[in-house]
């Protein structure tokens, strides 16, 4: 007995009472318990049990992407219950969530701490919120919860499959989304956890991603998502020749980087250029007989094929982008689900991004110091979340930013980005269709890439080339009202986004 520990004797009543149901241990009750478990009839009841009050912080995950029905559903219920002044802490919001703007106007929602994609970001840019949106990376969001800077009172977790005890999985059901990587954080750190499912399976829901030990209530509903908007069909490699040229340059840069050896690891998203770059890297790996270690991040059918071809040993999956990825997570031994913390949390005891050789990432703007903006468009409007951009850039041995030199009439290489999302110190190469710029800090890389048929240019010359086509457009003017705060992955504020005038 450790010193100071108080001895409490168990009373006889509690010995007879079994678990939370309060029922006695008799033969038929076990089956009933498995069936009833933590199920409550409605979200409203769950919110009452969770004692939701004005001013609380409610969180959601975004694995159902633009097919999500749960965020809107939950907020409609909370509004009906007369709850006000909520802080919304989603891992990300999508265009489908435009509907929640009315709850902002009516005072149900006070502010947002989380990524915003599309209409909610636009509304924030127009000054709809009284306090700024706090934007965090995937890793940064975990760190903030861990540090108690983002305290979640209630997490509402959409679950493509759940049993009555709250074991949750993403790999089956009509709204299957594969990995539940981002939801681990909410399950772990929220005071109360409500699972919402349209696919109640018999106990135990094996294999589960989120265990029953973290879930308070399970709410069955008609539908949690629109399948075709959750995962795409097979993502095809782009046929856009311009994007293919950029992808070809990326593959060449990777090949000559000095990192292209056995054990090679990479992360490339599901965007057009990234997919094509992966396809070209795949060809080069085959040609050179290179066997890589892992692909991390968002996983696609293409990553699955590379695993199955033996080009990579494993996939570390924080979110699954297509049906093939979902199916593979359920069946492939080398395909592992990882939490957001495992993926990108710098305050954890070790995250996957630090193990990466190559990260291929997008941008809405890049500047002379290699700073990257992914949050605001050239017109200064907040339209995108951070994702894992700044985490991956910081971790990877070589961070490659891909962008066309101009989009429409706007140059993508500018003097100063409107918003610094990812600092130039963590960016190594910028690849465009007309030239490739290496960060002068990376003399080692520059040495490796020289004389290899890669169109190397100074970043300043890339900017000039863009301006030959577009001229130098006027930058938008901003007032004093801060509508967004960009938090770096360590919790420091790297930039603010102001309202345009």
């Amino acid at each position, binding site marked *: 007995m450790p010193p100071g520990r108080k001895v409490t004797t168990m009373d006889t009543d509690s010995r007879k009472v079994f678990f939370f149901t309060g029922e006695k241990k008799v033969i038929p009750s076990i089956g009933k318990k498995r069936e009833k478990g933590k199920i409550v009839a409605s979200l409203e009841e769950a919110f009452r049990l969770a004692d939701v009050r004005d001013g609380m912080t409610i969180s959601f995950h975004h694995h159902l992407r633009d097919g999500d029905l749960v965020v809107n559903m939950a907020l409609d219920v909370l509004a009906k219950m007369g709850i006000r002044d909520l802080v919304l802490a989603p891992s990300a919001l999508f265009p489908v969530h435009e509907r929640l703007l009315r709850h902002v106007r009516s005072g149900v929602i006070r502010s947002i701490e989380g990524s915003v994609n599309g209409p909610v970001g636009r509304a924030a840019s127009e000054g709809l919120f009284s306090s700024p949106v706090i934007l965090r990376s995937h890793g940064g969001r975990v760190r903030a919860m861990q540090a108690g800077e983002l305290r979640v009172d209630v997490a509402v977790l959409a679950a493509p499959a759940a049993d009555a005890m709250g074991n949750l999985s993403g790999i089956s059901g009509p709204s299957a989304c594969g990995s539940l990587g981002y939801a681990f954080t909410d399950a772990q750190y929220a005071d109360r956890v409500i699972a919402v499912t349209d696919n109640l399976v018999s106990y135990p829901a094996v294999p589960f991603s989120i265990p029953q030990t973290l879930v308070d209530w399970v709410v069955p509903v008609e539908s949690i998502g629109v399948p075709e908007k959750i995962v795409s069909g097979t993502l095809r490699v782009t046929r856009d020749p*311009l994007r293919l040229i950029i992808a070809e340059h990326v593959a060449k840069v990777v090949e000559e980087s000095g990192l292209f050896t056995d054990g090679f690891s990479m992360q490339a998203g599901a965007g057009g250029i990234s997919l094509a770059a992966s396809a070209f890297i795949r060809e080069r790996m085959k040609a050179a007989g290179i066997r890589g270690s892992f692909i991390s991040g968002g996983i696609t059918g293409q990553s699955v094929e590379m695993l199955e071809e033996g080009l990579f040993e494993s996939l570390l999956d924080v979110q699954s982008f297509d049906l093939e990825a979902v199916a593979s997570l359920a069946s492939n031994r080398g395909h592992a689900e990882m939490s957001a913390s495992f993926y990108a949390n710098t305050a954890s005891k070790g995250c996957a991004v630090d193990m990466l050789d190559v990260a291929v990432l997008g941008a809405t703007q890049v500047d002379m110091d290699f700073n990257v903006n992914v949050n605001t468009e050239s017109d200064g409007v907040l339209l995108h979340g951070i994702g894992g951009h700044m985490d991956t850039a910081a971790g990877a041995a070589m961070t490659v930013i891909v962008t066309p030199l101009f989009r429409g009439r706007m140059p993508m290489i500018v003097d100063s980005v409107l918003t610094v999302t990812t600092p130039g110190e963590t960016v190594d190469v910028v690849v465009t269709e007309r030239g490739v710029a290496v960060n002068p800090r990376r003399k080692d890389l520059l040495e490796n890439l020289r004389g290899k048929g890669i169109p190397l240019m100074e970043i300043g010359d890339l900017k000039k080339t863009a301006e030959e086509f577009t001229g130098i457009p006027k930058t938008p003017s901003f007032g004093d009202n801060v509508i967004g705060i960009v938090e770096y992955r360590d919790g420091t504020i790297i930039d603010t986004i102001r309202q345009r005038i």
Partner: protein
Amino acid sequence: MKAKRLRRTSLYIPGTNPGMLANASVYGADSIILDLEDGVPVPEKDAARILVRNALKSVPYRGAEVTVRVNALSTPFGRDDFREIIPLAPDAIRLPKCESADDVREADALMTEIELNSGVEAGTVGIIAITESARGGRNLSEIAAASPRVIALNYGAEDYTADIGAVRTKEGRELDDIRAKVIVAARIAGVQALDSVFGDVNDMEGLYAEALRVRLLGFDGKSVIHPRQIPVVHRAFTPSEQEIGFARRVMAAFREASSRGAGVIALDGRMIDAPVVARAEKILALAEAAGCLPGER
């Protein structure tokens, strides 16, 4: 030298698409063709002419040769095309439907007139003559010799085979005769021979086989209709190691003989004639363009 520049690939860009016009030179084609002719529907001829004119004025095309396929002077659009395009001095025009030397002479005269009126040195803009009929095929030699502006001969496979009543096939035997005529006429005139397009943009193996075949026949390059075709054709136009090795030895023997002032060049006990030296030069140029000769030359 304009006539000798590398033209392994000539990429067609429809004159109606501003985005494609702006990006025409980024795909790595040796030559780009801003198209006003068959790639542009009749109701859009004027719009395309304006777009191509503005592209020539403002787009900084780097690396690639810039050419414009104008409409033939026998059409209602030809003269207007010349008036808008020639003053901007593209490297060359691609002159379609060349039937005889007169077609080339007529274009040459009009080009000279426009060049002089717009402050461009006369003779600046070259002509790549395109033959698309039996008659044009017969007259290729006089077409090639009709003007010093002519830098290359090309033919239109679809129109030509239709004109002679042949059926287009994948193997392309129906083109044997016109290909032979183009090569022979081009060699007599000392200009380049350029092959027509390969229509199936999804068949990369077929494209490679055809491109290799025409290179071995003597063609200097091939037109392409999609950027994806460019690296494939460039690969086909990359000489083999044996070819490069032999060419190097020919050039070494040539330089050695020249330095001695010897008129006769011998290699491995065999005489080397001027055409063999010319071919060796061409192979080394192709090899260099393909990056096979790092650090040389």
